[in-house]
């Protein structure tokens, strides 16, 4: 048996490895997605004052610090049993929209676009964001920079800093929004709405109007029929900051809708020997292996599954795009690569929602914190991270010292479907008797890049070389093919 190892995966935060097991005649026998790093963050939290948690957990990773900050802040509120003021809730959500904007922009233009604007089989040396600029021109490239920067600047204006915020405090936020800050944020948010509309138009022009790309998106290599998870408001519309977790089945019917504190009644985690990362599944169905279909316990928590699990979007332009997407692809949609489209719908929603929040007359109210008075004990906070439902659960002693912490991070939810998506893509793309070329490997990577995965906390050390090596090993153990990329 030949072995193809993709290690580490390009464009993936942290460290991951794909192993493809090929038979003697070159056909795919099996595929594994492995996370060889051991996370230790929950242990790191033990013994710390719980009010420090929202400032510590963003260090888990530089990619979605505000998500951890928000989930942690909500969990701390629950630990103290304190209800935050309405303005504090709106400010937290406004801050959060800033992260959604810059994160979704970065993903679409830097990760997804190279495969679609330049083509999945295009020359590797040019298949990146600089190559995109060469193709689409400086004007669009400049818009990307402005768009991303606005996301960061919104976070800074609202919360003081973006990468590792110190904004959430027990019972609210650390400062109100001034009139001047409100005006600056409103201006940026309104510009972002236009940039999001532009991005959806670009997606339509470049991807949807290209039959070859549409065939890839709708083809069998990238389909996966599993359940869908996402946070929804009282009207079952997508909400990133607050609400209940709704899970719908492969036909779109609601399986369960639960409050954050009930998550352990509905989600359990399976362990496989080949990965440190657990595989969450729905308790109602149990773990039945890496299987698709109505009776499987596997679910996805991605932009696409958030839209699948909801009945609509809470802002008008995003709702229209939501409708257009499902009118085109059907609902529920099981096309993994349609996640890119769903991400752009969410991007538009984030921008519109930011405008709604910053123009709310209450947004500059000075009452932004209710100081907790209760005895701390236990609390759960859930938000939608860009890459999936994020759960923080803390148990403290009566002095508020963390005794136990449990985190189910966005990508962990998707561990099983990522593994399955990779295998499915490889089954369709690896051909008997043919060497596994760089173009094929890239198309296999596309199956998991759609999930916007993020594992562990990557170090940021020099020299920054992040090599990619693919090794094909023959049945006798000889290395037959080595592909390197950087």
């Amino acid at each position, binding site marked *: 048996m030949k072995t193809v190892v993709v290690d580490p995966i390009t464009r993936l935060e942290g460290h991951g490895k794909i192993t493809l097991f090929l038979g003697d005649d070159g056909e795919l026998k099996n595929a594994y997605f492995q996370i060889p790093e051991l996370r230790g963050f929950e242990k790191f939290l033990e013994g710390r004052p719980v009010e420090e948690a929202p400032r510590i957990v963003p260090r888990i990773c530089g*990619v979605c610090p505000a998500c951890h900050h928000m989930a942690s802040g909500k969990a701390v509120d629950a630990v103290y049993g304190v209800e935050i003021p309405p303005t504090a809730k709106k400010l937290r959500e406004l801050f959060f929209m800033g992260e959604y904007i810059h994160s979704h922009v970065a993903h679409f233009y830097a990760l997804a676009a190279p495969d679609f604007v330049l083509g999945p089989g295009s020359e590797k040396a040019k298949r990146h964001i600089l190559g995109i600029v060469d193709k689409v021109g400086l004007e669009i490239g400049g818009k990307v*920079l402005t768009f991303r920067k606005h996301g960061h600047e919104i976070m800074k204006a609202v919360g003081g800093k973006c990468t590792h915020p110190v904004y959430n405090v027990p019972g609210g936020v650390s400062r109100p929004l001034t009139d001047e800050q409100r005006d600056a944020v409103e201006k940026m948010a309104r510009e972002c709405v236009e940039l999001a509309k532009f991005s959806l138009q670009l997606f339509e022009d470049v991807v949807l109007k290209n039959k070859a790309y549409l065939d890839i998106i709708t083809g069998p290599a990238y389909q996966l029929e599993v359940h869908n998870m996402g946070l929804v408001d009282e009207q079952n519309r997508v909400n990133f900051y607050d609400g209940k977790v709704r899970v719908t089945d492969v036909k779109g019917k609601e399986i369960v809708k639960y409050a954050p504190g009930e998550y352990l009644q509905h989600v359990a985690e399976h362990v496989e020997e080949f990965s440190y990362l657990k595989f969450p599944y729905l308790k109602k169905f149990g773990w039945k292996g890496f299987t698709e279909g109505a009776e499987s316990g596997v679910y996805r928590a991605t932009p696409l599954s958030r839209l699948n699990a909801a009945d609509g979007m809470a802002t008008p332009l995003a709702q229209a795009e939501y409708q257009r997407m499902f009118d085109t692809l059907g609902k529920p949609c099981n096309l993994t690569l349609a996640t890119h489209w769903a991400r752009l719908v969410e991007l538009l929603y984030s921008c519109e929602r930011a405008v709604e929040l910053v123009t709310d007359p209450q947004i500059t109210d000075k009452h932004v914190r209710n100081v907790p008075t209760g005895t701390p004990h236990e609390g759960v906070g859930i938000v939608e991270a860009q890459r999936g439902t994020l759960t923080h659960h803390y148990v403290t002693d009566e002095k508020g010292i963390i005794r136990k912490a449990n985190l189910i991070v966005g990508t962990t939810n998707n561990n099983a479907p990522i593994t399955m998506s990779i295998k499915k893509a490889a089954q369709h793309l690896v051909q008997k008797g043919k060497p596994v070329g760089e173009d094929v490997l890239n198309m296999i990577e596309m199956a998991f890049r759609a999930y916007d995965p993020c594992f562990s906390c990557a170090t*940021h050390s*020099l020299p*920054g070389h992040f090599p990619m090596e693919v090794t094909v090993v023959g049945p006798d153990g000889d290395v037959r093919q080595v592909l390197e*990329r950087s």
Partner: protein
Amino acid sequence: MRVVVLGLGNSVLADDAVGLKVADRVEALLAGGAPADGLAVEVCRNESGGWDVLDYVEGADVLVLVDASTDSTLAPGELRWYDPHALTAFTSGRLRGVHNIDMFAALEYARRMGWRVPSEIHVLGIGVQDVRTFTEDCTPAVAAAVEPAAAAVLARLAAAAATA
């Protein structure tokens, strides 16, 4: 001349935090009167790198980066000034992480978009022993390198001031 001293790293990953600690020390020495005549020096810290570096360097003439280095030829705590052009050779334009294109690719991207980004870049790497344990403390050899690393940065600033 506007100079940005940027410490990079993760503050809770042992030696990975050394760039941040050096930035702290440089800032303290400058506040205490260390000479940087003719320079407008801004000391910053960032824990994610890549794209995010653009938020700090827009409009700057000179960038001094300080970061932990996993270069296997460096002993823990050993300092090395890297040739930024050699580091740029690593750049492929592809991402190094999920949302972080390579920092040099990000700078090149911004330059092509007409942003004013530093034309002069100095990169100080500090050899590490442990960048995987969750702790706020560096290992002893790396912690001992903070003071000489800060001195090395100040010497670079002095040299930059002399040519300004």
